């Protein structure tokens, strides 16, 4: 039997807005993925640790507090430190378009901004896992 895609959905930093994270988590489950949701207020190192322990294929970060430029790259760094830089990281939330190039440069594969249909995120994750995503 084919292994299910495993995704970690995480809330880095102190932001308590989890409506988006919870919706994404459920949408991915509805598409047959296995989703682990970390809950609020996770440090970069906790997120990286959880991703390794849970052996996930992708990490999805959500932040609506404006702290993404600090918080997202720290997760990528933490993965590197733990030798798990092969786990792709994607993100979403209230993120201005002009921050996206910086975040990509820091190793975040894709940023989903408000209004993105969940199906788009699902497709991206699937292509990530197949290894044929472009960008």
């Amino acid at each position, binding site marked *: 039997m084919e292994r299910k895609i495993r995704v970690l959905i995480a809330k880095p*930093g*102190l*932001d*308590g*807005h*989890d*409506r988006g994270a*919870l*919706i994404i988590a*459920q*949408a991915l489950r509805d598409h047959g993925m296995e989703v682990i949701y970390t*809950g*609020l*207020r996770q*440090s970069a190192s906790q997120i990286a640790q959880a991703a390794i322990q849970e052996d996930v294929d992708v990490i999805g970060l959500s932040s609506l*507090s*404006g*702290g993404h*430029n*600090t*918080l997202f790259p*720290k997760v990528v760094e933490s993965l590197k430190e733990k030798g798990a830089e092969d786990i792709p990281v994607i993100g979403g939330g*209230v993120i*201005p*378009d*002009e921050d996206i190039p910086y975040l990509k440069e820091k190793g975040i594969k894709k940023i989903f*901004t*408000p*209004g993105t*249909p*969940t*199906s788009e995120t699902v497709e991206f994750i699937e292509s990530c896992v197949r290894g044929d995503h472009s960008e």
Partner: protein
Amino acid sequence: MSEQFHDRFQKWKEQVNRTNEKFPERKEKFVNKSDIEIDPLYIPKEDQLTNDYLEKIGFPGQFPYTRGIQPSMYRNRFWTMRQYAGFGSAKETNQRFRYLLDQGQTGLSVAFDLPTQIGYDSDDDLAEGEVGKVGVAIDSLEDMETLLEGIPLDQVSTSMTINAPASVLLCMYIAVAEKQGVPKEKITGTIQNDILKEYIARGTYIYPPKPSMRLITNIFEYCAKHVPKFNTISISGYHIREAGSTAVQEVAFTLANGMAYVDAAIESGLEVDEFAPRLAFFFNAHNNFFEEAAKFRAARRIWANLMKNKYQAKNEKSLRLRFHTQTGGSTLTAQQPDNNIVRVALQALSAVLGGTQSLHTNSRDEALALPTEESARIALRTQQIIAHESGVADTVDPLAGSYYVEQLTDQIEEEVLTYLERIEEMGGAVQAVEEGYMQREIHQTAYETQKKIESKEEIIVGLNEFQVEEEVHEDILRVDEQLEQEQVSQVQQVRQKRDQELVNQKLEKLRAAARDQKENLMPHILEGVKAYATVGEICHVLRDEFGEYSGV
């Protein structure tokens, strides 16, 4: 019936006269452009009166307050226009406050950054990247002094969106007022102080429910004696709605939380009429215009009945549900953001027709970032246009008597009561929160909504229909990344300057008080902030004693 109706009508007229003596009506005569005179209130003609009119609708300023909590509402004074603001440093936020007051805003509303809201100082590791982002960073009394500089606290009322550390920030506010020569008995404003909805929807909790409820009742008790004009809590449906609930769930969960606070205060030995007059509420306004207007009317009626019948409140002020409204942040789109101005106008209008006491209108760019000064001004102008140009404020509760609105009001009430029963059966709101009941209900609604939007069963203009090629939005507000470093060195300087021994002594006293269930913590916190103990230090002492909540 008819006799009773006339008695109540007479009573209402007397109430209006008394109000007019204190606050004369805005105009000598209210007329529209056709020179038709507008009465303060329209009521059914004798042959239109139904048997349940007085029980369900009645007169404004009278039980059950369906038509509003004041006898002539906005004929005397408009609602308070209160824009939520705060970002970066205390100094920057102080400038934005002064700008908004110059522009005709009538009250302040402080947004704090996340470290402040969760009780961490700016130099805490956990604060990295979050300092000054979603609100102003306040570490010590010194920051609060800067924030409120030049703002006369005997004249301006201030609302503070602060929950878990509400006691600390309120004490800082009291301390600044005293420095200005304003005694704490005179200050007016509101602290949000609603921890239950933090567990349910907003996420800035610190301690577990039980000690959190104690802190809240300590504040009720202290303020009843010493800060009598401050609203000690703003029981909030706003965030529950933003997290995805329906309008019915918003009212139901908010009122259930309200009952839990009343229960806790009574259990701690307070009389209901000692604290209930200072309870305030905070609701959302989304796009479904009549549903929203009816929701506010229903909420007032339900609360009045609960307070009167369940809690046996005698003071009329205890029965009146006073509320602030903010338009719906989650209804705004990042796409074609100027369309949001129209959404906000509709939502604001529903709040005004629903009888709100104060209002925040969101800015068009809030799905992208914090509002720019220009966007914040348009948002305020939207309220001013409703107030001064639309004429909707010239008569009380103009939607009353509409078959549709009255029926909707009744149906919302009925569905809310069903929820309240269910929550009561579970053992009350605290229990329901601990079991994750409200959280699950909200999430389910949020997910259904998302699916409807994706299947286009629900049309969101500019998002899933009527799209255009989007432009990059260049003029968004950015918080200076330097700020964090400055704030870190500032709090460290404060620690160097102050009398450390005095701080230690005050913190140890607070610790001892925390261990004694019977002790009210407020005087100890006040002493601490006056000695320049920081938000983080005070909250850490209480964390040590109370433990931390870690979610369901």
